[in-house]
């Protein structure tokens, strides 16, 4: 069994164990510079000198650039000596990860950190060659011949990974005690399992659950993976001390190399949420938001000097060396499919509130909408980035507010905006986009007592209606937001969509009673089934949209912890009562490798496949029922023998 003590962080610790009394304090190493021939050396040095001009004083012979003796070419790195150690420190801070030109990003280290170079050859070998050579196939779980999926479960101090077997007992794939000090998390495509330790984060994977990489971040509390699992952001409430002696809270890491790309201080004042008390630090995680393709990561600074700072991976340099100034910015979000930022600002003086869509890196504003009497806005992107829904809360009178939706159509000319007003007295509490789809669900409050669910569909301009006929000319031009259904949703506070779309579960969770509704949101949304998992805290779909797991976590409710597995149509498959059950997460899957054509072809031939699967299932059912029968017969035989024996003894004792 693995405990945190087994995790060897000694090499990381050694890396930072620097002799601070060294006399080389004023020397830095600059790596990642262009490799140039003899002819261009002077030119390069001049540019480098210029770059550091404002940072510190470099003596005339202060730059030493090693060159290959045979070719005379530079090696891409150089040593720079400053007049004072503070200047060297500043150089590291200011120029590290600087984009020197389109092809080169500079790394600047203190000379005293040279050990890092010696001990970390990984950074300098060809990164592409490294990951696959010795490592296990990190995606092997995808090839399960029974097309099953995995989940990780935490109960007490035990973390276990299971294969889902529908209504039969799950198969244990792997288990360890004290695997994680806090909780566990999957990376977005399921490749890695992240565990939390006092010293940092460890990622695990492959068929034997080997340690893949670790990130040293003392007292780490939160993490966030980039969409394509290239990078990870880590957060600790208590700041850690950087090699420069600064106090930082956030670090961003390269998962393949394990290297820290950059760390940030993040002042409490810059955090989301308006808690003034230091002790109850509230943060809007993730603070750093990844673009859909991992190319950028952006953060927001609120307030009068508000801005969005976009950093470019892997150098983590500020895009165009400056942040995007947006006074009083309240919230922002990336489009999930392109380099478009959305954000909103409140009313100021005579200027109305505004929702803006901006392209990156051009900073071109592609759409802006003014809104009046705004109290709050919430931004919800549809998964394909085709639509952005903005939930707008407005002051109606001095006391009452009213909510409506503004729907931006990103794929249509000039990005038209539809406005959806709810019925009198209805207030939107939450909005949930259908994944892989154009529908969304709205939970709305009607007075203090009544809750309703509404399903809407985005109908694009020029769309054909359900019967295949063209819509009227007017509809063709405009498109619409169609209300598909309104239904009572008493005791419901969550809508959890299938990752494949169309189906969703309405749940009353975390403080509600645990009522569940299974919906098929087709053209005519229908309630398929209802269920109950008393005091349910979590509802999770499997990554294929075939199963739903409801669970009661010990972290929130201390009695009747455990989980219930349902089919997506709401049929109960199994109820498991698990003492000290804390967490259950389905392992995500990357998108299928099958082409659209292949998928269509498979669907067309589904009957042939079905025959095979039916046979498999029937055989399995027979096998299971035979096993059950045999087990029972065995138990019965055993018990009868025992009873006969004791009866015999009893009789003999009586006679005696």
């Amino acid at each position, binding site marked *: 069994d693995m405990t945190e003590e087994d995790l060897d962080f000694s090499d990381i610790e050694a890396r930072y164990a620097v002799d601070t009394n060294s006399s080389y304090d004023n020397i830095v190493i600059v790596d990642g510079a262009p490799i140039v021939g003899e002819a261009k050396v002077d030119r390069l040095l001049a540019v480098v000198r210029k770059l550091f001009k404002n940072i510190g004083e470099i003596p005339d012979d202060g730059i030493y650039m090693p060159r290959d003796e045979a070719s005379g070419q530079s090696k891409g790195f150089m040593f720079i000596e400053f007049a004072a150690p503070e200047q060297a420190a500043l150089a590291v801070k200011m120029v590290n990860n600087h984009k020197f030109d389109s092809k080169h990003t500079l790394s600047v280290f203190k000379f005293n950190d040279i050990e890092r170079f010696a001990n970390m050859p990984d950074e300098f070998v060809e990164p592409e060659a490294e990951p696959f050579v010795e490592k296990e196939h990190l*995606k*092997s779980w995808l*090839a399960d011949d029974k*097309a099953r999926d995995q989940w990780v479960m935490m109960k007490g101090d035990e973390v276990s990974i299971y294969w889902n077997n529908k209504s039969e007992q799950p198969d244990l794939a792997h288990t360890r005690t004290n695997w994680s000090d806090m909780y566990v998390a999957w990376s977005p495509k399921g490749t890695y399992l992240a565990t939390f330790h006092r010293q940092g984060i460890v990622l695990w994977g492959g068929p034997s659950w080997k340690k893949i990489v670790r990130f040293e971040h003392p007292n780490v509390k939160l993490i966030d993976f980039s969409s394509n699992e290239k990078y990870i952001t880590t957060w600790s409430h208590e700041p850690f001390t950087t090699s420069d002696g600064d106090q930082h809270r956030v670090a961003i890491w390269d998962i393949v190399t394990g290297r820290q790309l950059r760390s940030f201080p993040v002042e409490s004042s810059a955090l989301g949420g308006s808690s003034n008390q230091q002790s109850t630090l509230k943060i809007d995680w993730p603070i750093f938001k990844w673009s859909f393709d991992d190319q950028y990561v952006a953060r927001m600074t609120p307030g009068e000097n508000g801005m969005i700072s976009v950093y470019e991976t892997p150098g983590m340099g500020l895009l165009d060396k400056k942040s995007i100034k947006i006074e009083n910015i309240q919230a922002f979000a990336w489009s999930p499919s392109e380099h478009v930022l959305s954000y909103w600002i409140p009313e100021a003086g005579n200027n109305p509130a505004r929702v803006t869509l901006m392209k990156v890196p051009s900073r071109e504003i592609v759409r802006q909408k003014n809104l009046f009497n705004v109290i709050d806005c919430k931004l919800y992107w549809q998964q394909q980035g085709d639509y952005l829904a903005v939930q707008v809360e407005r002051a109606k009178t001095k006391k009452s507010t009213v909510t409506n939706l503004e729907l931006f159509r990103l794929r249509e000319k000039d990005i038209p905006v539809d406005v959806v007003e709810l019925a009198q007295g209805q207030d939107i509490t939450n909005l949930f986009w259908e994944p892989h789809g154009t529908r969304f669900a709205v939970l709305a409050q009607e007075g203090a007592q009544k809750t309703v669910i509404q399903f809407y569909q985005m109908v694009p301009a020029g769309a054909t209606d359900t019967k295949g006929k063209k819509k009227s000319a007017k509809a063709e031009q405009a498109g619409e937001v169609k209300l598909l259904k309104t239904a009572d949703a008493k005791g419901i506070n969550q809508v959890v969509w299938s990752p494949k779309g169309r189906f969703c579960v309405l749940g009353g969770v975390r403080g509600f009673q645990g009522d569940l509704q299974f919906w098929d949101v087709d053209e005519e949304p229908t309630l*398929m089934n209802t269920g109950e998992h008393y005091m349910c805290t979590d509802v999770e779909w499997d990554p294929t*949209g*075939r199963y739903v797991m409801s669970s009661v976590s010990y972290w929130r409710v201390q009695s009747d912890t455990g989980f219930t597995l349902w089919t997506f149509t709401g049929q109960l498959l199994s109820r498991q009562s698990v003492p000290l059950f804390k967490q259950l997460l389905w392992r995500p899957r990357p998108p299928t490798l099958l082409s659209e054509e292949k998928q269509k072809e498979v669907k067309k031939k*589904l009957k042939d*496949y079905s025959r095979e*699967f039916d046979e498999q299932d029937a055989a399995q059912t027979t096998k299971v029922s035979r096993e059950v029968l045999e087990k029972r017969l065995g138990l019965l035989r055993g018990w009868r023998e025992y009873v006969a024996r004791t009866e015999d003894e009893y009789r003999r004792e009586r006679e005696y």
Partner: protein
Amino acid sequence: EEHKQTAQRRLLIEKKKELRENEVARKEKEEQRLRQIKQQQEQEAEKVRLEEEAKRRETDRLAQVRAEVEKQEAAKLAAQLAGELKDRNVKMTQEELDSMDADKLRALQIQQLEKEKRELQSKLKVLGKRYDHIERAFRKEEIPLLSADYEE
């Protein structure tokens, strides 16, 4: 003496007569009183009877009204149920539906709802199987691609 006797007898006779007259008058009076009482009683009885009659008539009227309302409501309910049943595509003619009372229609409706529930569940079973099989078919076809992906 004789005169005295005669006078006395006359007096006696008169006295008797007077007494008799008094008696008759008393009797008459008594009879009249009894007659009056009887009459009063009869009047009161009549009054009670009339009141009861009125009450009975009122109850009858109310019952009639209630019956009428009930009948109307039953008809309304029947119409509604019949309408709902028609909406639910029950294969029955309007005449057939019209001929049924609310109880029958309600039973029919329960029957219909149960049928729909059964139909929905069997539909869901097919749906569940279809989605499971699509996923399994995709996964089956994906396996060779995965190993190819790993080779890369």
